[in-house]
C-alpha cells in the first residue's frame, strides 16, 4: 500500500528507523535519551517501547563511548545507528570518527567494513544557545572514508537514511534541526535518488543556486522572490556532500553560466569554498561571472538574538546574485 502522508521530518526519520529495525535484525539504535524519552527532538519516539532494550537503548552520557562502541558492534555484525543529540556535542567523538570510523575499512583493506550511521541534528535557526547550532559538515567532509549526507526534504530524510543504514560504509547523517517539525507530503514507498546524486529542485535559466540541508528551502525562497523580479534562478539540492555530484552541478552551471553557493557554515575553508573551487575549475569557460558564496560569517555561532544576521537569508542571496556581472551592469 502506498500513499503520501503528511509528516514532519522528525516523523520521516522515525519511520525510516522503524522500518530499518523491522526489516533487519542487525540494526540497533542507541545514544543519549533516545530510548524512554524518544530523543530530545522526539526523533526516536516510541521505538524503545516497540522494539525493546536490545534494539533501542540509552547509553552513558559520553559521545566518544557511543561512537567507539558502535565501531565494535559493527565489527561484530551489527548496523548501529547512533544519535549525537546536537552538532557541537559530537566533538568528543571526533577522534573515534576520524581515526577509526573513517579509516578502519581502508586500514584492513576492506576486510572490515563499518556500516554505522551517525545521526547529527545540525545547524541553526532554532534560537538555540551556544553549542547547539554548529554547522560542522566541513570537518566530516574533509575526512576521507566518511560519507556525508544532508537531506533537505522529508522524503529525502526517509529515503537517504534508509540507504545509509543499508549500506556498507559509515555515514554522517546531518539532520537540519530547523526543519524537524516542518510538515511535507511523503510517500515512503517511492524511492528517492541514491546518495551521491544531486537533484535540481527548481530549473532556472539565469543563474544556479547550489545548496544542501537547511539552506535548500532558503535558496528556493530566494528563487521564488527573484522570479517576481524577473530573474529565473535554478536551485540544486546536493543531498550528499560526500560523494559530491560534480556532474549534475556542472551541467546546470554550464547551462546558466552563473552560480552562487549557499550554506550556513562559516565560509572560510568550508564546503561552500570547495564547491566554488570545483565549479570554477570545471566550468570556467562557461562562466559569465565568478562563483560567489553566501555563507555564515567566520565567527562562532552567534547567540539567539543575533543569529538572523548570521544565517544566509533571501535578501543576502539576491544581493549576491545581483553582483554576478549581468549585462545591464555592463551597459
Amino acid at each position: 500500500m502506498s500513499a503520501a502522508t503528511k509528516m514532519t521530518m522528525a516523523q520521516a526519520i522515525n519511520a525510516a528507523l522503524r522500518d530499518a529495525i523491522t526489516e533487519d535484525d542487525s540494526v540497533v539504535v542507541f545514544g543519549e535519551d533516545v530510548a524512554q524519552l524518544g530523543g530530545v527532538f522526539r526523533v526516536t519516539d516510541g521505538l524503545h517501547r516497540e522494539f525493546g532494550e536490545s534494539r533501542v537503548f540509552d547509553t552513558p552520557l559520553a559521545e566518544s563511548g557511543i561512537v567507539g562502541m558502535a565501531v565494535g558492534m559493527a565489527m561484530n555484525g551489527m548496523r548501529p545507528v547512533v544519535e549525537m543529540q546536537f552538532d557541537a556535542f559530537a566533538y568528543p567523538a571526533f577522534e573515534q570518527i576520524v581515526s577509526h570510523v573513517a579509516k578502519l575499512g581502508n586500514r584492513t583493506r576492506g576486510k572490515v567494513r563499518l556500516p554505522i550511521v551517525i545521526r547529527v541534528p545540525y545547524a541553526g535557526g532554532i534560537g538555540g544557545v551556544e553549542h547547539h547550532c554548529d554547522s560542522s559538515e566541513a570537518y566530516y567532509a574533509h575526512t576521507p572514508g566518511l560519507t556525508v549526507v544532508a537531506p533537505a526534504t522529508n522524503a529525502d530524510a526517509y529515503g537517504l537514511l534508509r540507504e545509509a543504514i543499508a549500506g556498507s560504509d559509515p555515514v554522517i547523517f546531518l539532520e537540519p534541526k530547523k526543519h524537524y517539525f516542518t510538515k511535507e507530503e511523503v510517500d515512503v514507498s517511492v524511492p528517492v535518488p541514491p546518495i551521491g546524486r544531486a537533484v535540481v529542485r527548481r530549473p532556472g535559466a539565469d543563474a544556479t543556486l547550489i545548496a544542501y540541508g537547511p539552506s535548500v528551502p532558503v535558496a528556493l525562497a530566494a528563487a521564488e522572490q527573484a522570479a517576481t523580479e524577473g530573474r529565473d534562478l535554478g536551485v540544486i539540492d546536493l543531498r550528499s556532500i560526500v560523494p559530491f555530484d560534480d556532474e549534475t552541478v556542472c551541467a546546470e552551471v554550464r547551462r546558466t553560466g552563473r552560480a552562487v553557493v549557499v550554506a550556513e557554515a562559516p565560509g572560510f575553508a568550508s564546503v561552500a569554498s570547495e564547491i566554488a573551487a570545483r565549479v570554477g575549475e570545471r566550468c570556467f569557460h562557461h562562466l559569465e561571472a565568478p562563483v560567489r558564496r553566501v555563507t555564515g560569517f567566520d565567527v562562532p555561532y552567534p547567540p539567539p538574538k543575533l543569529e538572523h544576521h548570521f544565517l544566509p537569508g533571501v535578501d543576502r542571496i539576491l544581493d549576491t546574485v545581483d553582483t554576478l556581472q549581468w549585462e545591464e551592469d555592463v551597459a
Partner: protein
Amino acid sequence: MWRCGLSAGQLKAAITPARLLDETGRLVRGAPTPDAEALAEGYRKLVFARRLNEQAGALVRQGRLAVYPSSRGQEACQVACTSVLAEGDWLFPTYRDSAAIAARGVDPVEVLTLLRGDWHCGYDPNVHKVAPQATPLATQLLHAVGVGHAARLKGEDTVVMALCGDGATSEGDFHEACNFAAVFRAPVVFFVQNNKYAISVPLARQSVAPSLAAKAIGYGMPGVRVDGNDLPALEKVLGEAVARARAGDGPTLVEADTYRIESHTNADDASRYRADDEVTAWLPRDPLLRVRTYLTAIGALDDEREQDIAAAAEEMAAAVRAGVGAETVADPEEVFAHVYSTLTPQLAEQRAALRAELELEEA
C-alpha cells in the same frame, strides 16, 4: 537495579599483586601447583615471544622495519592474554603487542606488515579475531566493548581481551570504555600492562591512584593486580576474568605489574629519562627465567627439550627474516581502493590522474 558491591577482599586484590612463582622460580606459599605440561607449553611461547622481539629489533637495525616497539620483559603478559582465550574470542592489541598477536596464531610476517610500511594492517582481523593494532591510545577499548555488547545481544558467549598500557589509562576513552563495559556488563577483560613508562613519562605522572587496578572500583567492576612477569599467576587471574565475562558477570580490569626493558621504540633513547640501575634491578625478574628455573627444578624441562624449543624459535625467526626481507611491490593505486566500498567519482578521477603520472614515468 543491579549495582556492583565492594568487599575488603576485592580492595586487596586491586592493590596487592597476585603471584604464584616468585623471582627465584619457586612457588609461593599456598600456591596451587601449575600443570607442568601446560607451563612447559607456556615457556615455549615465552621463548618465541622473546625471539620475535629480538628478531624484529634486529630487522629495524638492518633497515628492514621502520620501527619496532618491543615488549621485551613483558612476554609473560603477551603470552597469557592470548592463552586464556577460546577460538571465537577477540583480542584488541596495541602497537606494543606484536608478540601477543603472533601468540594468537597470526603469522608474524603479517603482524610486521604495519611496521614494514606496506600497509596499515597486514592481517585479516576476522580470521584470528584480532583487531588491527591500535596506535591512538585507548580508542580500541571502546571497540572491544562494542564487540562484546554485540555478542551479548546476539546471545553468543564471546569474550573480548582489550589491551592497553599505563599511559593509556589517562585517556578519556579508557574511562568511557570501563564505564560502558560496567554499565552494560559487557564480556570484556581490560588488561593493562603497567610497564611504568609512556615513552618517557613515568607512572607517577599518569596517576597517583593506589593502583591502576583500583580504578575499577569506581566503575563498579572488579580490579585485580598481578605480577606481570609471573606467567602462571597471569594465566590464573586472566583466566578467571575471562570465565567471569563468559558467564555473563561483566568486565574485569586486570593490571600487570611489569617493566619495559627496552626504549619505547628503537627511535627512543631511554637513557635520557631513566637510570640504568632501575633497568638492571628488573632484570632478575625476567619472565622467562623464573618459569625456566621452576620447570627445570621439577624435571619438566631438560636440555633436549630446551634445545628443541630454541631450534623451533630459530626457525620462526628465520621465516620472519625471509618474509620481512622479501621484496614486495606496493601498488600505488591501492591507496584509493579501500577508502569506500565503491570508488567515488572523485577518487576515480584522482586514481586516473595518478595512473597517467605513473605511465608517463614508465614511458
